[in-house]
């Protein structure tokens, strides 16, 4: 089943974690428990008061337990976004552990 993740290999993906964070980075690997390797990753922090803040994180291993959603990012569209002027409600936890 997890072979489906092959389509995301070496692409920039957006991950929503169980605690409601949004982490964006290049997917360098995964395994059968959906542990992920993200390279050059950053977190996008949403707020209704200020624009989207991008916090650099670097090389990350996210444990599969903590992965709620994975999506491929359209880099062309993403480059055109004006993050400083996008305000949004933070997501909040997807589940409680």
């Amino acid at each position, binding site marked *: 089943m997890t072979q489906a993740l092959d389509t995301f*290999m070496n692409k920039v993906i957006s991950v929503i*974690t*169980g*605690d409601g964070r949004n982490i964006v980075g290049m997917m*360098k*690997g*995964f*395994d059968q428990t959906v*542990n*992920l*390797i993200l*390279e*050059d990753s950053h977190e996008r922090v949403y707020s209704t008061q200020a624009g989207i803040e991008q916090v650099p*994180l*670097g*090389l*990350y*291993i*996210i*444990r599969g*337990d*903590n992965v709620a959603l994975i999506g491929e990012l359209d880099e062309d569209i993403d480059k055109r976004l004006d993050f400083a002027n996008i305000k949004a409600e933070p997501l909040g936890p997807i589940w409680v*552990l």
Partner: protein
Amino acid sequence: MVLPLSLLRTAQNHPMLVELKNGETYNGHLVSCDSWMNIHLRDAICTSRDGDRFQKMPEVYVRGSTIKYLRIPDEVVEMVKDEVKEVRRQQKDNTRAKKNFQRGAGGNVGGPPRGGGAPRGGRGGQRGRK
């Protein structure tokens, strides 16, 4: 493709940050890890969920299932491919050594173990020499 647990193994002796599911973070040097992501850290600093309390811990063992994510130095991802290659090479050497050992230890069915082309009983054979 790199497997997350191979990357973790390569990160041994490097500094790393581990966030647990309860929000605590541990900054320390990875001593060892296993295939369940259980990890052994040395000289760790534990930061509370709110980031307001810190404590030094000379030795920490973390159960893999309590981990949310790990932050690893960027250069480790470049080292992992060489490490995987090295491990494969060692495994190959090991199996080869084992095979040779088995042959040497009475497993030599059907002719001399090496240099098979040599005529039997001749002077050029491997046997009878020492």
